[in-house]
């Protein structure tokens, strides 16, 4: 048995030995131990180093508020830094490392910072490191030089770069009553609500339900409190309407009674089962929340209060009663309230010598005096601890007479030999979640604590959360809260009886003992009482300034230990009561939450993949795919050894010479149906659709309300009241929402429906001189000749036994057809076309060739309709109907939108026969050394096989007037400069004779 482990007591399993390492050294513990309790049992006193001064630190607490004992847990190469040792359940093979020390925890070179002493006071960095105003270190350079070293010295644990192999998951939960905290109040609330038939979730951040019942030495209902708790949990477990969530921290209270919780599913296990997540993120929509979150014990602020061996009093009770570990052999207690006397008795019972109880109050009640003698402790009433001694472990402390009213110390200091000093500075209710829910906490001068605010959302408090610190109150309030939350009526049935030590819940209003030496308020960030007073001196007196200037409360414990003492010291300096200094409004998260858990099921799967019906064919036939929003589309179908440019040039050339086919299934498709469909289209498109004949298609342009270009595409009239609208791939969703908005909000009187049918149809565009012949040889049920299927005509037929809809329209500028079939037949039709097309020289082509041919034609896409261009800028003003108003028509001619000098669409030809780059700029006068005078930029570029030149589309100031002039491409990012000719955007077959055939 370890030196500090008691023979009996606690809920650890002494028959099960667990092996783990800390900083490489092997240790053993027992099942049920935390890393903190197991190391403490092994006699370890030094757990960590502080942030700024690298001071040696031991355990302050036994729970989630631990500021000192932070470790990195390793799983293979995967690192989990900054975990409180008090929250790590040990398992066989656990590997934990201490942090923020070089080379070792015992010998840390960073401790040299302690010599900096008063120079490194709060905010010192704002006053220096500015460096010289001139010379090589001017500007930001000197600071950045210093910063380099500061950054390396700062930081706690080290994060890893190896991908985390763990799985994270989300769970959406709904309940009538969420109970947070499973102490006596929470258990009573859960039980009462469950008995009413409510759907209940009970969550506790600890591994075991019971809260204070697990370590309080009290009895409930005639049995040890911990047994009562286990009995109640067992009763709850039997209920279908109750979900129990141990190891689950409710960390966020969001609008609409939505709470976020983190369940640590496998962190305490050696390995996860198949499919089991490491952590589960619960998003809980609760009817009512019951807060039974208890309270935190506060440290006292006095010189040397950070020495390893100085610990919160109740934490020692937990180590003794939950883990059977004695935090020291010779224990002293320092308190401003009654609760520490119970701790003294517990320590005594567990076998420690309680050498002294130092109480700042001279007037100690007889009940407490009786507890002191029960603990066989010498009582120093009206005294205070003024110093502690020891290095990496406590060896003793000094005590002086203390006057509570003025804070004065008097008389000779007396030394007491002790290896553990327990402190209690009163209790602060754990109101963080209630504060997150939106209201300001209220200061209670009797309790010397912030109590929960009046609820703005649907929650009820119970137990120590409300400032009622006795177990009897917790039990009564818990039941009442559970009943109320479940919609039940108050019960007058008898409550379980509680036997507990007596005690006054109100502490003395003493937070700090002013004496020589560093007194810590924020342990992890090394903020001292003097730092708080310095902030006061420099005018940083509001609570937020105090936090920001000194970093008080900004450490990983988020001020759980330091908030109230820090406020109290500032209040004293200001001569104001504490509530006038202010209170912090708490924000999520209550405790730090892993980023992986928040990504949950999206960790490793950020976005779904959107696939066309022919996707697998493309992959099997050598396509290189690229992302287009969530879609994947073929970029090229490269042959062995081909570059991208060679591939798209071949594809485009073959299409213009014989025929090419491209998958256009990603185009947005919207069914517009109903008696008012045509009228609606007249309003949303700039051009007229009511005049379109059934069986014909028309190219349409949409503007935004502000008159700028929005989207374009063809719309097919399939029936009198039945249109199929197509949109660009990128804007499909936006156009759909745009249409729905106008239908629902602006023109609800119109009778029509819009439905996304993008996924219903597979689309293949086949174009080129041989396209019609290919279709003619495989389409049945219709002719495809010029008379039956004129430009923009639509026919219905079959290919390979599958019904198809064919529209003759062209993006490539060739004689071209879009062939639509139902999605489940898409690959069949595609393969049939390719098979039939082989003798005609049909090629498949991807986005690159598609882009090349559209550039040659001067068609616009999203690169030109970029949200800043108008129809006129893009030479689409011929589509602006003058016969009717349409969305954007009233706004499109405002002065800024028709100003001369706007960027207008032009074509560019490279005069040095070198390729362009997308995003290159255009200048009138070339200055490679000092680029300036941009008149526009390239939106798209390619090698044009049709022209045998490198060409581009560009948006250029006053572009129309520049046709035929020369300028330069200026691309300093890629060091590409050269002469160009500005031409019309219609490079190729401007009359459209090829597509009209």
């Amino acid at each position, binding site marked *: 048995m370890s030196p500090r482990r008691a023979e009996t007591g606690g809920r650890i399993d002494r028959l099960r030995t667990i092996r783990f390492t800390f900083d490489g050294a092997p240790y053993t513990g027992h099942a049920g131990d935390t890393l903190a309790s197991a190391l403490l049992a092994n006699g370890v006193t030094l757990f960590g180093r502080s942030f700024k001064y690298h001071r040696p630190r031991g355990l302050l607490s036994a729970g989630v508020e631990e500021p000192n004992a932070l470790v990195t847990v390793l799983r293979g190469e995967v690192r989990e830094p900054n975990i409180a040792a008090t929250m790590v359940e040990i398992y066989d093979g656990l590997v934990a490392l201490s942090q923020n020390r070089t080379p070792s925890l015992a010998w840390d070179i960073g401790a040299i910072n302690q010599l900096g002493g008063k120079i490194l006071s709060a905010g010192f960095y704002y006053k220096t490191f500015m460096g010289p105003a001139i010379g090589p270190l001017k500007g930001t350079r000197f600071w950045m030089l210093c910063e380099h070293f500061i950054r390396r010295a700062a930081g706690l644990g080290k994060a890893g770069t190896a991908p985390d192999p763990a799985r994270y998951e989300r769970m959406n939960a709904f309940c009538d009553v969420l109970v947070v905290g499973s102490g006596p109040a929470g258990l009573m609330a859960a039980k009462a609500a469950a008995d009413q038939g409510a759907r209940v979730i009970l969550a506790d951040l600890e591994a075991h339900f019971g809260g204070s019942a697990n370590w309080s030495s009290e009895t409930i209902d005639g049995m040890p409190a911990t047994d009562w708790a286990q009995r109640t949990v067992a009763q709850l477990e039997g209920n279908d309407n109750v979900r129990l969530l141990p190891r689950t921290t409710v960390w966020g209270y969001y609008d609409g009674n939505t709470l976020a919780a983190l369940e640590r599913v496998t962190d305490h296990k050696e390995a996860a089962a198949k499919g089991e997540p490491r952590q589960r993120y619960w998003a809980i929509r609760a009817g009512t929340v019951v807060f039974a979150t208890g309270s935190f014990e506060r440290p006292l602020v006095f010189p040397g209060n950070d020495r390893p061996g100085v610990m919160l009093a109740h934490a020692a009770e937990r180590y003794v009663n939950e883990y059977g570990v004695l935090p020291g052999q010779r224990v002293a207690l320092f308190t401003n309230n009654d609760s520490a006397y119970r701790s003294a008795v517990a320590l005594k019972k567990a076998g420690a010598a309680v050498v002294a109880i130092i109480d700042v109050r001279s007037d100690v009640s007889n009940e407490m005096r009786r507890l002191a003698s029960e603990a066989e402790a010498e009582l120093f009433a009206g005294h205070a601890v003024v110093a502690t001694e020891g290095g990496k472990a406590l060896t003793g402390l000094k005590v002086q007479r203390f006057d509570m009213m003025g804070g004065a110390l008097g008389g000779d200091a007396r030394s007491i030999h002790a290896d553990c000093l327990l402190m209690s500075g009163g209790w602060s209710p754990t109101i963080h979640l209630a504060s997150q829910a939106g209201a300001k906490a209220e200061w209670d001068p009797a309790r010397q604590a912030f109590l929960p605010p009046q609820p703005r959302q649907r929650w009820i408090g119970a137990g120590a959360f409300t400032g009622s610190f006795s177990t009897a109150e917790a039990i009564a309030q818990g039941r009442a809260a559970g009943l109320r939350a479940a919609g039940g009526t108050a019960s007058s049935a008898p409550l379980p009886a509680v036997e507990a030590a007596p005690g006054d819940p109100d502490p003395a209003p003493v937070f700090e003992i002013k004496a020589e030496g560093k007194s810590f308020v924020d342990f992890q960030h090394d903020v001292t009482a003097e730092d708080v007073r310095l902030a006061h001196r420099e005018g940083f007196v509001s609570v937020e300034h105090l936090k920001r200037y000194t970093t008080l409360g900004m450490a990983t414990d988020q001020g759980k230990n330091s908030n109230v003492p820090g406020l109290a010291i500032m209040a004293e300096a200001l001569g104001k009561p504490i509530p006038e200094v202010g209170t912090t409004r708490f924000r999520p998260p209550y405790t730090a939450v892993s980023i992986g858990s928040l990504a949950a099921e999206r960790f490793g*799967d950020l976005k*779904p993949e959107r*696939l066309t019906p022919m996707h697998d064919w493309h992959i099997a036939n050598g396509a290189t795919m690229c992302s287009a929003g969530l879609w994947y589309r073929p970029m090229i179908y490269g042959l062995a050894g081909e570059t991208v440019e060679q591939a798209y040039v071949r594809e485009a050339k073959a299409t213009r010479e014989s025929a090419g086919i491209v998958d256009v299934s990603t185009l947005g498709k919207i069914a517009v149906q109903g008696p008012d469909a045509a009228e609606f289209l007249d309003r949303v498109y700039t051009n007229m659709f009511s005049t379109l004949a059934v069986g014909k298609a028309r190219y349409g342009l949409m503007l935004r309300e502000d008159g700028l270009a929005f989207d374009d595409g063809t719309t097919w009239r399939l029936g009198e009241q039945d249109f199929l609208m197509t949109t660009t791939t990128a804007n499909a969703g936006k156009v759909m929402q745009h249409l729905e908005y106008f239908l629902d909000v602006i023109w609800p009187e119109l009778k029509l*429906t819009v439905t996304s049918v993008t996924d219903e149809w597979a689309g293949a565009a086949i174009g080129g001189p041989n396209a019609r012949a290919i279709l003619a040889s495989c389409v049945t049920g219709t002719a495809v000749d010029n008379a039956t299927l004129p430009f923009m005509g639509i026919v219905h037929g079959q290919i390979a036994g599958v019904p198809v809809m064919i529209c003759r329209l062209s993006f490539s500028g060739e004689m071209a057809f879009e062939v639509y079939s139902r999605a489940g037949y898409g*690959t069949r039709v595609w393969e049939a076309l390719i098979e039939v097309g082989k003798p005609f020289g049909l090629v498949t082509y991807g986005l690159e060739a598609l882009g090349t041919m559209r550039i040659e034609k001067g068609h616009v896409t999203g690169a030109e309709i970029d949200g800043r261009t108008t129809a006129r800028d893009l030479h689409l003003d011929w589509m602006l109907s003058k016969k009717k108003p349409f969305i954007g028509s009233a706004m499109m001619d405002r002065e800024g939108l028709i100003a001369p000098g706007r960027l207008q669409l032009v074509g560019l030809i490279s005069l040095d026969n070198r390729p362009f780059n997308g995003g290159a700029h255009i200048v009138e006068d070339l200055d490679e050394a000092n680029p300036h005078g941009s008149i526009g930029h390239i939106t798209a570029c390619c090698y044009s096989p049709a022209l045998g030149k490198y060409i581009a589309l560009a948006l250029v100031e006053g572009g129309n007037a520049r046709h035929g002039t020369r300028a330069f491409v200026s691309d300093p990012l890629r060091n590409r400069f050269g002469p160009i000719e500005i031409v019309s955007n219609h490079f190729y077959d401007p009359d459209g004779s090829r597509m009209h055939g």
Partner: protein
Amino acid sequence: MAEHQLPERQSPLEPEYHPGSHGNFEHGVDVILSETRPGSILQLAAWPGEEKRLIEAIRKVTGLGLPDGAGGGVSNGVRAAFGFAPGKFTVVDEAEGLAAAFAGAITPAIGTLTDLSHGRTPIRIAGPKAEWVMAKFFAIDFALPAFPLGAGRSTNHHDIFAQIQRSGADQFDIYVFRSFARSFWKALCHASEEVGYEVH
């Protein structure tokens, strides 16, 4: 009718559809996943005030009597129907050709009919842990009192829009856009590993 000679449709799930038991199934399989592959999926929409006539048309053509109320639905194993939006219903039939059957029934005076037989992919999840697995994806309450038998819901999982019908006490049919179906299927299988699943 021509539809009867139509070739078999390609499933969007094909390369990722692996019949058999998967995941943590050693202690039993807690959900069964399948693609139901109905022949017809229609969207029917009524003009405001015409909902009753549309519901009557559904009854006449399919024999399914839709209960009143938002999201009300019914399923008989062969055919199913449910409301998913104001005045809008999804109607499903194992057989092809439902659109033709409705063509005369949904007149322009009543509303519109849109054939989505290929555009939506129905995926079925069944078993004691179906609610648990569904709750991993969707922020809606799957408990039976909140989501009764036959009822329909429209919801989404991030980018993936879904209509869900409860087709059994522990069975849900999820209609997702075809282009997203494979991604969703993979995610659903992944999420089912924890409880052990079987693909039928």
